């Protein structure tokens, strides 16, 4: 059976642990040895929506493992722009590759691709729904910093309504028995109710606030997100909230020593550049961990044990 990676819904904590362990082992293997692992394999990188980190780190990961990459970085460069259906695109691409990585602005696209293709499919972000590879690298970053996940206190800040990284990560953290979250957002960008209804034996508490300063003394991790202009159906609503939160170094003076600030990037103005110099800034290492985790994901998809 092929191994897809579509949604955190599909994974147990044990499944996630396999990815985390593989990523840790990837770091111990020399570049020369790594280069042998996926020789002859081709990854189709289908980005129907703009991306810097996810696309480049996936492509870099494949090259690091000795494989090759074909694909496109925007829909305009494909036959989809000529009216070709998504299904036809997938059936065409599967003739030329061994794994398909998809980013698409519509929710559920990767699930659909996985159902119609005989190749493994990796979801690199589907609309506002899921971003499981980002979640896995976020978890890897957390483990590297805290050596554990359970019991940590996490504050999500910014666009909690449309941010797929928040939706995916929240679900994963609950699987690891994190049961206390602070949600910092404007009213119009609150976490959807359906994401707060979780099936777990452990009661999960959500503390909601509009004040970023509430999160600083509270949290082990502050997970910042960008207010995403492209997700707003009404641009006036975007203008009202675009500058809702800006974390700066002065605010972090009250922070506990262990606090780490994460961000899936890109940032606009929600984290001031002076935070970069503080020991709390973890977002660039987080982006670097993306390259490690995406190698682990590709190895897992191809069932290569290291």
């Amino acid at each position, binding site marked *: 059976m092929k191994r897809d990676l579509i949604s955190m819904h599909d994974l147990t904590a044990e499944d996630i642990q396999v990815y985390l362990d593989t990523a840790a082992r990837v770091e111990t293997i020399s570049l020369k040895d790594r280069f042998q692992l996926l020789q002859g394999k081709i990854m189709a990188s289908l980005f129907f929506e703009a991306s810097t980190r996810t696309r480049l780190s996936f492509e870099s990961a494949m090259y690091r493992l000795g494989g090759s990459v074909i694909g496109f970085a925007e829909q305009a460069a494909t036959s989809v722009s000529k009216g070709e259906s998504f*299904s036809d695109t997938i059936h065409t691409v599967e003739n030329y590759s061994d794994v398909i990585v998809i980013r698409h602005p519509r*929710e*559920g*696209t990767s699930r659909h691709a996985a159902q119609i293709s005989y190749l493994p499919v990796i979801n690199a972000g589907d609309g506002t729904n*899921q971003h499981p590879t980002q979640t896995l690298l976020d978890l890897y970053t957390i483990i590297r910093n805290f050596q554990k996940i359970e019991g940590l206190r996490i504050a999500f800040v910014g666009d909690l309504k449309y941010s797929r990284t928040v939706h995916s990560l929240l679900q994963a953290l609950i699987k690891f028995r994190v049961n206390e979250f602070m949600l910092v957002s404007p009213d119009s960008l609150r976490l959807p109710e*359906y994401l707060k209804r979780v099936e777990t034996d452990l009661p999960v508490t959500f503390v909601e606030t509009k004040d970023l300063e509430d999160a600083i003394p509270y949290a082990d991790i502050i997970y910042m997100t960008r207010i995403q202009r492209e997700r707003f159906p009404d641009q006036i609503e975007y203008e009202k909230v675009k500058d809702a939160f800006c974390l700066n170094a002065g605010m972090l003076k009250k922070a506990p020593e262990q606090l780490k600030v994460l961000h899936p990037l890109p940032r606009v103005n929600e984290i001031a550049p002076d935070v970069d110099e503080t020991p709390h800034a973890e977002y660039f290492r987080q982006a670097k961990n993306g390259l490690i985790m995406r190698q682990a994901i590709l190895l897992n998809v191809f069932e290569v044990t290291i």
Partner: protein
Amino acid sequence: MSDNKIQMIPKIRSGIVIDHIPAGDGVHILEILERDPALKNVPITFGMNYQSNKLGAKDMLKIQKDDLCERTIQHISLVSPGVTIKRIRNFEVVEKVFVQPPKEMVNLLRCLNPGCITQNEPGLKTRFILTDPKKNLVTCVYCEREFSIHELSPIV
């Protein structure tokens, strides 16, 4: 009570009775029956607001046809879960089922999320999982959004 019922909606010799419909839902079930091509020209009797010990008030439908197709029954289960479908032969009830929404619904409901791939890919069948039977909540398999069944329009 029993005599009263007979006066208001006559017994049928043979066919299907949909009973224990919460008052007001009968109209929605009638809309579903109207869309079923197999029921074209079939006599259907519709009664509203009967007294009911269980529901307070109920609607009832009597269809002079021996069976209903599975898809129509599934649609009924979505708009009014818990109704009773009785099969009648020679004025007697020979079979009675309580209708509940199926655990998985394939191409019965349209996803409300305009960004969902099912709204945008021709020919892709929608799929919903019943995630909370008590609250009638369903989750789209594709976009993973949760909805109340009553928010979603049926695919006909």
